[in-house]
């Protein structure tokens, strides 16, 4: 009889509480592990910064050599060289450069941008973004895509948003 009384009602419920807390903690731990699991430690996408040669490598106008690998147009115009993002500011497609019409045209919904990246037709609400572009000490161009410059925020006057050529 003494054994049967070893766990009274109050103790049973405290064990139950411990059990439920442990079960909830295990579930939360599993959920957070699954969440972390979905973010790989390494991805095999192109680097966010790259050396883009020397300013003399570029003709005046739009250069598409970095478009496929890094998603960047190099635009040399009016004495400056800029690194323009090729992500449409409407919904994130990639516009095409149309040399005959001197504009970027997005195939998804028809947004159009001038050569300098400013939007003028279609649904895009703001100009294409510039990436940070600087010179390394040995005279090469370094494009850094982790820092963006938005024209509508007045950031295209920032010294890192272009280089003089």
């Amino acid at each position: 009889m003494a054994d049967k009384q070893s766990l009274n009602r109050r103790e049973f419920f405290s064990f139950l509480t411990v059990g439920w807390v442990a079960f909830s903690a295990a579930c939360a731990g599993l959920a957070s592990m699954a969440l972390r699991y979905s973010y790989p430690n390494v991805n095999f996408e192109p680097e966010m910064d790259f050396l883009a040669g020397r300013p003399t490598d570029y003709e005046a106008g739009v250069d598409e050599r970095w478009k496929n690998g890094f998603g960047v147009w190099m635009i040399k115009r009016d004495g400056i060289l800029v690194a323009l993002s090729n992500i449409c500011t409407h919904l994130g497609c990639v516009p095409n450069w149309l040399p005959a019409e001197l504009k970027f045209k997005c195939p998804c919904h028809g947004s159009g941008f001038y050569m300098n990246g400013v939007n003028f037709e279609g649904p895009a609400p703001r100009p294409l973004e510039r990436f940070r572009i600087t010179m390394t000490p040995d005279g090469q161009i370094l494009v850094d895509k982790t820092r963006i410059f938005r024209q509508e925020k007045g950031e295209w006057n920032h010294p890192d948003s272009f280089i003089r050529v």
Partner: protein
Amino acid sequence: MADKGLAQKVRDTQVWKSIFRHGPPDNARNRAAVVAGNVFLHLHPIKLKKSGVELGYTWCMGGLTFFIFLALAVTGVLLMFYYRPTAEYAFNDIVAMREHVPLGIMREIHRWGAHAMVITVWLHMFRVFMTGSYKPPREFNWGVGVILLVLTMLLSFTGYLLPWDQLAIWAIAVGANMAKATPLVGHGGPGAAFAVIGDFVMVSDKNDVRYQLLGGRFVGEPALLRFYILHCVFIPLVVGTLIAVHFWRVRKDGGISAPL
């Protein structure tokens, strides 16, 4: 003994009796046993009001949706035998399904079925709304149905990437940018701009919810694999479970609502 019909002889065999524990469904008790003793049918109400299943009232849209879901599951499994979710093979395998595989219409059935299921789900929801069948005691089941609606559209969304053509890639690029705009957990969404400590950006394109969805910063091969797993395994499992709950609650909440 000799005048026993063939049907009765079959019913008297041990094989038959081991499968069907009840007698022939020629009385109310046996008919109830048919439903209650079957693992699939037991989700279904044992008795229905005849007026409750009038075609003009239910449109049979829930039933059609379930039928199409089963057809999609079967055709989808068949398609999986010929599809490899890699950037190198995906598009060519889709073409091969039409050109090199018998019954090349299989993929079209899957695709048309997907369109049809979205339509029937909406019409089912419309019917349930117009007949007031979302009201208590059925409000919980309405909630389950709304989740199933969202999952149906997520199945369409994830399946849309698998052909791996230009339309697929850019449609998913646009769709995934909606995840980018999620408050707090998307790097383009409200709140993300404030989650910055000095130069350290807490919510960036490398750790936000869009990255989790795509397995990368843009729609690439990891996104194809993720969408394939979501489309073929993860979401169908959740949908199948919720369909069981949905049918069970139809039974437990008083059956299909009857015409007034």
